[in-house]
């Protein structure tokens, strides 16, 4: 796990974007997340790692209240975005999700054209006026998702006709077109081949200049390559959270060490 770039990666900004305090999640009687407290910094890639079923995806989905759509799911504790409690009664999850975008494990473009996929978010949030402005937004989102060159001549082709890696970049373009502040990524490269994965990872590093990125991954190498901060989850607990370099080189908890050296998980 000696990634050379780890040394270069200085966290530029230590402003806290999302602060989670003592978060508990229950699925019915099942206590899925126990006492998790994490402070996610702005303009930083934070990786959540851990074995399957450890609750990292569940916790990620708490950050934009996607768990609200799951029947029987209950979240306790306090999660703030820029100091505002996102589980406050007055918060509309729809507004929250416009500011905290999400990319899913399996590429899930809408069965519409590439253009319509990207334009959908700005359209429903009323972010643009007129066709010309929308064209610009679509173009810049696709450019930032490193997809523009491949699709600029077939924007009206269906998004489902792209390759897996292109579809996932389309989903990222769709998410960033709504100008979110935080981008949540749930194993964004797990369904992709190594080349597409490399493209996505490169993209994540670029996205960091504009957003806070939180990525859930099964691949420790991926976490080491793309993130500045890493959180290790195990059986619903947050075991360790710190600088990526420190987690992978000198883990403090024996469970973290076991996991990153491949003894558990």
């Amino acid at each position, binding site marked *: 796990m000696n990634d050379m770039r780890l040394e270069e990666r200085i966290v530029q900004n230590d402003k806290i974007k999302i602060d989670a305090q003592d978060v508990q999640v229950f699925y019915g009687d099942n206590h899925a997340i126990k006492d998790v407290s994490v402070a996610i910094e702005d303009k930083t890639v934070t990786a959540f790692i851990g074995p399957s079923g450890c609750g990292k995806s569940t916790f990620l989905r708490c950050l934009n209240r996607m768990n609200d759509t799951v029947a029987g799911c209950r979240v306790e504790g306090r999660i703030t975005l820029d100091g505002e409690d996102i589980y406050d009664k007055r918060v509309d999850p729809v507004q929250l999700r416009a500011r905290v975008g999400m990319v899913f494990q399996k590429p*899930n473009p*809408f*069965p519409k054209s590439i253009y319509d996929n990207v334009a959908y978010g700005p359209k429903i949030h009323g972010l643009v006026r007129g066709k010309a402005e929308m064209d610009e937004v679509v173009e810049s989102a696709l450019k930032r998702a490193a997809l523009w060159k491949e699709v600029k001549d077939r924007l009206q082709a269906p998004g489902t006709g792209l390759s897996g890696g292109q579809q996932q970049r389309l989903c990222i373009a769709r998410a960033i077109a709504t100008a979110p502040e935080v981008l949540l990524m749930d194993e964004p490269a797990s369904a992709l081949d190594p080349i597409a994965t490399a493209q996505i990872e490169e993209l994540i590093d670029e996205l960091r200049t504009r957003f806070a990125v939180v990525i859930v991954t099964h691949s420790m190498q991926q976490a080491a390559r793309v993130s500045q901060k890493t959180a290790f989850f195990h059986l619903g607990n947050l075991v360790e959270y710190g600088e990526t370099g420190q987690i992978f080189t000198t883990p403090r908890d024996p469970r973290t060490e076991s996991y990153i050296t491949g003894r558990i998980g």
Partner: protein
Amino acid sequence: MTDVIAERPAKPSLLTLDARTRRRNAAEARFRAYGLAAVMAGIVALVVLLASVLGNGLGAFTQTRVTLQVELPAAKLDKSGTRDIEVMKKATTLTYGPLITAALSAAIKDRGIVVEGLSKKDLSGFLSKESAAQLRDRVLADPRLVGAAVTQSFLVNGRIDGYEKGRVTMQSAEKDSNVSPAQLHLADALETAGILHTGFNRDFVTAPDASDQRPEAAGLGVAILGSAYMMLIVLILSLPIGVATAIYLEEFAPQNRWTDLIEVNISNLAAVPSIVFGILGLAIFINFAGLPQSAPIVGGLVLTLMTLPTIIIATRAALKAVPPSIRDAALGIGASKIQAIFHHVLPLAMPGIMTGAIIGLAQALGETAPLLLIGMVAFVRDYPGAPPEGFFDPSSALPVQVFNWTQRADPAFVERASGAIIVLLVFLVIMNTAAILIRRRFERRW
């Protein structure tokens, strides 16, 4: 650990089957044979059914007519001489009948046809009782015809028509008091003379029903119109209500005992015998709400109640089949629930919803029992008016017309009933084809 593994024969050959494999292969072969037998039995039953319906019913689409030139004396038909329609209406079919008989008798004489034992009664009974009414309607529609001669083709009696189609023979005519062999000889002679011919019968699908005495004039016009009106009402009411209910139950309703109860009841409603819906319609729409009997509006409402569960169940299944990733995608970029449903889920569920709706409609089109209870079995000769007023006019329905005709004594109605079944089947095939085409057209990959 090795001693746990079962002993196998020292060196089994791949070229010979062991007993166990032979038994398994035999079981598979038997299962295939049962399946094939079941499919073949189904196909045979279908072929027999279609052959019997087509064999009996195709005759309804042709009809035998005699072309005659009829004198229309003003003295008899218009006593005032002013062509006043009210005065002319006083001349009934009893006045017109003898004119046609006279024309037939003149035509026989002109062509030198001589038929042994042809009585006066045979001559007047040769043509349909409907022909006088046809001529009267034509004259009343155009009074200027009076005083001249008109050429018109008249329906012949149902038995003579049956002779032309092979249903009635000389032998059967001798025993039948409704037809004499002399009439059949006359029919042969007229056919040779070229004024009696059997041709396509457009009236079968456009004309209204006719009485027991005139099977040759009976048509499906009113029944088709009534069925069409009912289908329109069912479509307009059940599609939006059913789809909205399904969306609410599937996407918005909380999961509790009340929604469970509603779901169980909807599933049960789909299995309720249709005649029960007829009793319900009679009690609520006619006795309580005071809507008219035999009206397409009541039939449409009753069939809507029957179709709703089908559409709700089909729509819910279609909504469930949309992958959750599409919902996540929409919600994840900040679409509200209603936006996610209407922009993404519903379009993807559309083929399933449309298929369910059309199959529900096809089921409603063929439904008979509830319509009997709300009076659609009545004998209706007047076309219902244009919608929406026409929805309240008395009317018939296709399956009820089939039921009605099979009740009647004259064997010619067997042919009519089978013909009506063919029309009903054609409509069902059209609707099912539409369902398949819509499915293909809207189906999208995701």
